Every structure is written in C-alpha cells, then in structure tokens.
C-alpha cells in the first residue's frame, strides 16, 4: 500500500478538477495525467520548498555511500522525492546501480517519521526523509541533533503545489491563478491563507520541479509508466 501514490489514482477516479500534490506525485500526475501546476503556498516561516536528507547515527561510522555497503537502509515511500527518488539518485551518483544488492536490507517505513525513528533507535543503519519532518522532530527530540548526522542533502523542490486538470478552460485556469496570487492582498484572502498556515501563494511552474525530474531521469524512472507501489 501507499498513501503517497494513491492521489494519482484518486484524481482520476474522483474526477477532480484540481488538487495539492507533493513534489514527486505532481511529477507523476503531470507525466501520467497532464495536470498543470498553478501556484503553491509560502508558509509563515517563509518556506515554500523542501529538500531530502540522508542520515545515520553518529556512532554508526557511516559517512558516505561507500560506508553503506552491507548496511540496512530505510526509505519512506516509492512515491516520495526525499524518501526514495533522491536516495536512489544518490546511490547512482555514487556508482551504485543495484542498491538492493549493495545493501544488506532496504525497506519502506511508510512515513518520514518512522524512518527517522528507525535510524535513531538503531532498527536500521541509514535513513532518508524530507528536511521539514526532520527539522520538526529534531525540535521535539533532542537526541536527533545529538545522535544523528546528515550525510547528504538534495536540491530544493516545491512543497504541495496546486495543480489543475489538463483540459480545464484556460480562462478559468488563468483567473484562478490570478486570484490565488492576489489572495494576500485582501483581508478575506488573508484569513483563508491563515487557515492553511500560509503567508501567500506564489507562482509555481514546471521549472520549480527541476530536481524531481532530474533525479527521476538520473535513476532511470519513466514517470509515465512508474509503478509507485512499494515493493520489498
């Protein structure tokens, strides 16, 4: 099962006109269904992007891909940028084509939080997760900073972009986009933004997903044909 990839199936089955997509699920949806991104919220702390982390326990001695040979690796989900696409591309960049053979064990925890927890509790040796979750847990649990160390970081990708279906009327699409971008101009819009935890909507285009497409290409993933269900 996957919570991340299901959105693509649901978009079709529910005949949606638009939805917020994660970075990788947008890339999938765009490739499979042709949805177009319009804008994305900028959060109150000013962030509108995230990136992936690859991390280990400090006492594991692992500091590079080479150290990971024969170790256990915890991914999040096959349909996540930070929790799968980025670490796979990281292995490729470091010359490891078949990570399954290189590693003693590779598995999907299903959530960023579990991945971080598994590394922290030693149930695995290496983990990959998005920086926003990592930072949050790091704030909640002091052991993260003390006992874990980040050994690789991905490039920034947009978080939660609002995309509409491919065949939506161009006029509506343009009006919607204009309205979204102007939401922070009036009080009503500000209130709506606040309930989303956002400061404003910022213009978002295919270019912002540069790294997603790059990592997918590097790892040889055909997005249009991608089987996003996790395997073992």
């Amino acid at each position: 099962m996957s919570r991340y990839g299901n959105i693509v199936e649901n978009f079709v089955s529910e005949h949606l006109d638009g939805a917020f997509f994660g970075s990788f699920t947008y890339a999938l949806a765009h490739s499979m269904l042709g949805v177009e991104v319009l804008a994305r919220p900028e959060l109150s702390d000013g962030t509108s992007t995230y990136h992936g982390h690859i991390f280990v326990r400090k006492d594991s001695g692992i500091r590079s891909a080479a150290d990971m040979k024969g170790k256990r690796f915890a991914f999040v989900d096959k349909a996540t940028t930070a929790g799968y696409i980025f670490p796979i591309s990281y292995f490729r960049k470091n010359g490891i084509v078949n990570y399954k053979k290189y590693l003693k064990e590779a598995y999907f925890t299903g959530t960023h939080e579990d991945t971080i927890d598994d590394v922290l509790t030693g149930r695995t040796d290496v983990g990959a997760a998005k920086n926003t979750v990592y930072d949050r847990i790091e704030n909640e649990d002091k052991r993260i900073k003390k006992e874990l160390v980040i050994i690789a970081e991905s490039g920034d990708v947009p978080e939660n972009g609002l995309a509409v279906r491919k065949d939506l009327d161009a006029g509506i699409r343009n009006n919607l986009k204009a309205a979204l971008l102007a939401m922070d101009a009036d009080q009503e819009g500000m209130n709506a933004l606040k309930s989303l935890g956002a400061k404003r909507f910022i213009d978002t285009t295919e270019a912002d997903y540069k790294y997603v497409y790059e990592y997918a290409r590097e790892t040889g993933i055909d997005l249009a044909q991608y089987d996003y269900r996790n395997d073992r």
Partner: protein
Amino acid sequence: MKKKIILGLSVFSLVFFMGGIYIISAIEESTAKLDSLITLHQVEILREHLLLSIKRVQSDLNLRNTRYARSIDTIVDDVKNMGQAARSCNGCHHSEKVMEKLNDLQASVDIYKDSISRVFTIRANEARILVEEDAAFRTGEELTEKVKNIIAIASSNVAKKTRTSLREINNTKKILFILVGIGPIIAIGLTFFLIRGLTKPVDILLNAIRKIKGGNLDFRIEGLEDEFGEVAAAINDMSASLIDHIGKVEDSEKRYRTLFESAGDAIFILEAEGEKPGTIFAANKAASDMHGYMKDELIGMNITDLDTLESTVGSPEKVQRMLKGEWIKTEITHCKKDGTIFPVEVSAGLIEIGNHKYILTFDRDITNRKQAEEALQRTEQLKMVGELAAGLAHEIKNPLAGIEVSIELLLEELPLTERDRDVLLKVIDEIKRIEISIRELLSFAKPPSPEFHPVTVNAVMDKAMTFSLKNPSFSSIRLMKEYDDSNPDIMADPVQMHQVFMNLLLNAAEAMPGGGTLTVKTCVDEPSNTLQVTISDTGKGFDKASREKLFQPFFTTKAKGTGLGLAVTKRLIEQNNGAIIAENNIGGGASFRIVFPIGQKKN
C-alpha cells in the same frame, strides 16, 4: 410578650429557612453524587469501550495477511476510534495522580498507534515485518493489560464510591424523612409553646380575678412577666387598694352602726317602694328592746304591725305624706309583743340610698313623760280643788264657830232634859270634827310657810313620842328607838317636823290595832349625804292599790279618817326639802322612810 412572639416567629422562620436550605442542599448533593456516579459509570463504559477498541485493533493486527483481514480503511477507522476512546478519558478527570496515569495511558496508546501504523505502512522483508508485528502486538497486549488494570482499579473505586454514595444518599434520605417527620412536630411543639405562653398567663389572670371577685382580696398574682406582669401588678395594686378602701368603708359602717345601735330611740328603716311599703328593712337594738321583739323578728314585719288599731287608722295617710317628701312628727301608740300598749313620739321622713327610697323613723317611748305630765296635771287639779276647799272652809269656819258658841250658850242657860242635853253635846262634837277637818284641809291646801332653824331630829322625835303616848292608840304598842347619836342637825321648821313625826307615829300605831312593835330609826346615809328617819310597824302592810294612792288627799282606809293626814305630811316634808317613801317590810308590816339632805341651808 411581643418580644417573645417576634422571637418565636423568627425562630420559626429560621428553622424553616434552615430546614429548606438543608433539604435543597441535600437534594443538590444527592443529585450531584448521582451525577458523578453516572459519570463514573459512563467513564467505566468509556474504558470498556477503549479496551474493546484496543482489542479490535489487536485483532486487526492479528488478522492481517489472513483471509479475514479487514480493509485498510476499516483498520484506520478502528485505530482512530481507539485514539478517540483514549482521548475521551482525559475529558473529565482532574486529579493529578489520575491525570498522570491517563497521560501514561495516552502515551501508550500513541506508541501503539505508531506501532500499528508502522506495521501497516512498512514494506520490508518478512523478518523485519514480523519484528514490527511482534512489537506492535506486544505493545497492544501491554496496553490492554494497562487498560484492564485501570479498569480493575477504577471499577473497584467506582464500586466503592457507588456504595459510599448510595449509603450517603440513603443517610440523607433518612435525615430528610426525619426532618419531614420531625419538622411538623417541632412546628406543633413551638406553636403549642407559643400559645401556652399566651394562654397560661391569661388563665392565671382569670383565676386571680375570679378569686378576687369571690372576695379573696389577699390573693396576689405572682410569677408573670412582661405585659402580663404589668397587668398582674395593676390587679395586685387594685386588690390592695380595694382592701384599703373596704377597710375605710367598714370602719365608717362600724361607726354608723354603733351610732345606730346605741341610739336611745328606736330607729327603723322601712321599704318605701314596691308592693309593701312600710316593710321593716332594718331596726336597731332600742327598737327591739322597746317592742319586745327579737331584731330578726322585726325585719320583714310591717311597721303597721306595731301600731295599735287606733294608730293604724291614720297611718296610710301619713305614709303618703312622707312619700311626697314631708318630714312628719306625731304621737301614736305602739303595741309590744306581749300586748302592752305604750305611747311613742314618731319622727319620720323619706330618705334615698343608692336610688332606692326608704322611710327612716325615730320612735321615742314617751310613757314616762306622759305619766309625769299626768301627775303634774293631777297635782295642779288638787291644788286648785284644795284652794277652793280652803276658801270654802274659811267661809264655813266663822259661822261654824258662831253655831258652836250659840249651842254652848243654850246648854248653860236653857233647862233641858238629859236627852236634849246629850243631843246638843253630840252636835258640839260633830262641829269640832268639822273644825278639825277644816283645819287639816286648810293646812294641806295652804300650809304655813316653814321657818327654817337647826333641828336636832332625835330630840324632836322624842318630844313627838311623849305626846303620842298619851293617845289611847298606843295602849298595846311597844316602842323601840334605834337612834344614831352622831346625827347632825338639819335645817327645817321644828314645829312642822314635830307635826310630821306625830302624824307618822299615830298612823303607825293605828295600823296595829291589835298591838305590835313600833320602831323608830335615825341614821346618816353617807353615800347620798342624807339623814334618814324610818318609822316601821308590824301591821298588815299595804296592798298594791293602796300604796299607789297612799299620799293622795281624801284617800283613807280608816272609818273615821279624813284622808288628809298623809297628804299633809308629805306636803310638809317636801316644803322642808325632804322626801318620803312608803314600803312594805320584808318580814311584814310597813315602813315610812323620810330623807333630809344634810347641811341644808334656809331655802
């Protein structure tokens, strides 16, 4: 009392207010307890629900990868339910210890949820999945145990609390029943107490007033307070003042009764109104003594019952006059109980006592006055007759003397037969008798005025005796003298005294025609300072009728008496300031006692 009533009502209100407050608060408390019990039981259900939801998640976990596995959505719902069940536990508890436990439970639930989430989201080799599944299952079992423990502890607490609450509610119920039961009794008791506080003093006052009305004026009310005390004090004062007043009235009544009872005149108070005017209402001692009735007999009689037939005739008219307000004075005759009739002077009139009319009469017995008046009248008559007789005697005396001288002359000068001579001598005798009578009548009717000199009574008496003894009446009489030699002289006419003694000695001798003893006694009576001379005989004495008329002129028991001797004697003694008393002797015979005052000066 006002204060007491206000206080009583306040206590009443306060008791009811407190009772009301207690009942309301007791109901509130019981309701709150029941509420908390219901809540506790709800919580128990919530815990059971939590336990069930945990068990369901456990079964979700166990059934995973089997034919009976539930859909992922169902499982997600189950986990959500479990989370909600756990959170609902935090809703109501406040105790720190319980909160700690619940927080711990919440943490365990969160850990379990994470474990379940891991199991269902993880994609790894079987070994890792088994490990995760085991871990999740163990966590679930531990959680189940924890919840069971909490349920066990809480259940026992709830049971305990239920028992305590029910017991307390039961107790409250009992107290309420007692209150509801006792409340009216207290109210009745208080009311009774209050009413008794009012009626008891009123009873005491009523009782006291009845006693006072019954005449017990010495009765005093004690032990009352407040306004009743003041009333009691006023009644006590009234009693004291009544005693004082009655004492004064009684004193006054006693004074007037004494006056009434000790009056010499008979006093009657007669009814002047109603059907029987004249009914005797009151009479004094003099009235009863005067009429010979007991006082009780007089009361209720009519005043006319005392009148003689003759007096009764005029009485209705007199009563009418009195009723018109006239004060009448009249002389009538009354009849004593024994039938004796006596004259009374009546002075009577109308009086009014307390709007009631009475007749007040003063009756005076005037028997003595009447007798005195009659005696005086008779004496006056006698005097007049005497003077008439003396005048006549004086006119007869001279012709009679001429007749006597003429007959004596004829006797000497005429040659008469013996028989004629005897006739003439008899005529001369009769003429002499007429002369004596005339002389005595004259000395009675016009006695010569006494010439007062000191007189030695014993000596005069001796001389009179000597003369008397010549009289033939003394032939068989024995004379006895009992003189007191220390007698003083008295002032009197010696000649008249001599005549008095002579008359009395002769009278005594004539009273003893068959002989007897004549005793003459002289003595001084110190108490009355008088000289008394008693001449006693041993004759027949007087009968009652003759004693009353003894000194009346012309009264005589003797065949040849003039009836003037004792009358003249009495007259002479009285002219010499003396008195004479005739009495029968105890041993028979009569005595004449002459009393002269000693130290008598010439009148």
